[in-house]
């Protein structure tokens, strides 16, 4: 039996709302949603912190917080980047910022 496969458009007419190009113009101009932007910044910041973790000249990073490690490096005159400290002080409540890259792994 060859039933003709009916399309939903057979009973409901395709109604295409004309947008008059409204959407096209909208998408490039306004900034991407604030959420996405925040995510991007966060990712950048975390990447910087991970690079700080991986800089061997400041000593091992496991078991201590990033700020503790920064302060130790400062104490011994190793010139850790100030930017890292500012970042850590702004975000001191967030464990993802506070703790080193390996903090999720058991010792």
């Amino acid at each position, binding site marked *: 039996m060859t039933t003709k496969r009916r399309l939903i458009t057979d009973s409901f007419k395709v109604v295409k709302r004309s947008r008059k190009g409204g959407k096209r113009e909208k998408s490039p101009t306004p900034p991407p949603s604030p959420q996405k932007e925040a995510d991007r910044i966060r990712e950048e910041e975390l990447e910087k912190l991970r690079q700080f973790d991986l800089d*061997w*000249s400041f*000593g*091992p990073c*496991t*078991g*201590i917080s990033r700020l*503790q490690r920064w*302060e*130790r490096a400062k*104490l*011994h*005159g*190793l010139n850790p980047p100030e930017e890292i400290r500012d970042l850590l002080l702004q975000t001191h409540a967030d464990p993802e910022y506070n703790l080193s890259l390996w903090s999720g*792994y*058991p*010792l």
Partner: protein
Amino acid sequence: MFSDLSVQKEGSSLLCRPASEDQGPVFERTSLAYSQCSERYRVGERSFSRQYAHIYAARLMQMRPLLSERAQQKWGSDVVIKKLCDLETAEQCCIVGTLFKRMDLQPSILKEISEEVGSSAKFTPHIESSYWIVLLTTFFFLALQHNLLPQPARAKYIHESDELILEDELQRIKLEGKIDKDKCVTGSVIAVYGAERNDGKFTVEDFCTADLPLQKARPPLDSDRFVLLASGLGLGSTHADSMLGLQLLVDMVTGQLGDLGEQSGAATISRVLLAGNLLSQNTQDKDASTKAKYLTKKTQAGSVDAIRLLDELLLQLVASVPVDVMPGQYDPTNYTLPQQPLHRCMFPLSSVYPTLQLASNPYHASIDGVRFLGTSGQNVCDIQRYSSRDSHLEILEETLRLRHLAPTAPDTLGCYPFYQKDPFILEECPHVYFSGNAPTFDSKLIKGPDGQEVLLVTVPEFSSTQIACLVNLRTLHCEPISFSAFSADEDEESEMNVSH
């Protein structure tokens, strides 16, 4: 000196009739300005979640600038100081790093287990750490089943197959040449001068240590004042041979012994410092932890009586003279260095006196401007076990030259996992540097390159030698003072011998 003081006064005052009805002269004890500088040895928050990598990293960070400076002094300011990662074969240069001595005889839990279980499982050294823990626990239980005995305790753990390795932040290299591996210990930070050979080993031509730190000048004193050092009282031991000597010591210090001359001499002892092991090793009952609870329920720990005895002894002392009490290896406080002060509640009688100072081990204080630094001897004994050196005095001097109180911590000596800085690095040079619980009394005045003057003292164990020592703060001389009631040698005079 102290001995002359007691002799020069008309020595026969004991044998003559009391001069008059009144009490006789009172000798005022000289009191001195005193301040403790042991804050760095206090452990506030105690977190054991860190690895020991931090303490080695901090040690190297702190010592690198000092050693670079020394290297330039020694081998000229144009000496090339390199990190191991920049090292090129056959290039003469200087490297600053931490020594590691690979020792076959060093007790290691991994080795004990792998030898026992080695036939069934081969260890591969590069396993992720989480697996290690699983493996370790497995092997541990296996080991228990096999009744595995620990490696025997030895007096010395050195062996001719030992290897010296120098580590910096990133790499390590084997050392050869003009460096005596038996004298070096793990954890010392040194600078070596030489070149890497084709076979990847570094040939040392010369090496240097950080040497003595700078010293603050000692204020000149106008009269002789003494500090009495004693250690290893060994209370609570099964044989009470030393009790008479100990009581004599207390009586001598409190001025209840001898004639007027001796008493006026005793008044110049302005402080007593007890350097650890106040209790005997016998008070540590190792069985208690393995026995069934119901068997030990009504028994009392051996240290309880000994502490009570110590409290009574201290009471006699603190009523008359300020006393500093340092804990030692067998005393009831934490085991790992730095040992925290004994708790006041253990001394209900003597702790009401402000003259009782419960100090930490290591001890650091300024007594009338004279800096005292020292330990109860664990650091020295540990180096003795892991190097060919035997003389406590020589080891003491070596740690001063290395500018580090306890280089073998945390490798073979218990140590708190510090991360910020290594508190055992000497930042300023003491005037008196001592270690307790030595087999014999020994002392030496050494001079540093920058005019430092340090008195080294090994304070003998009192329970076995009956010897304490007196340090003269004015001249920095030290003399032993023996309280042995019965001398070991027959030919010595057998009478009570408060000799000098």
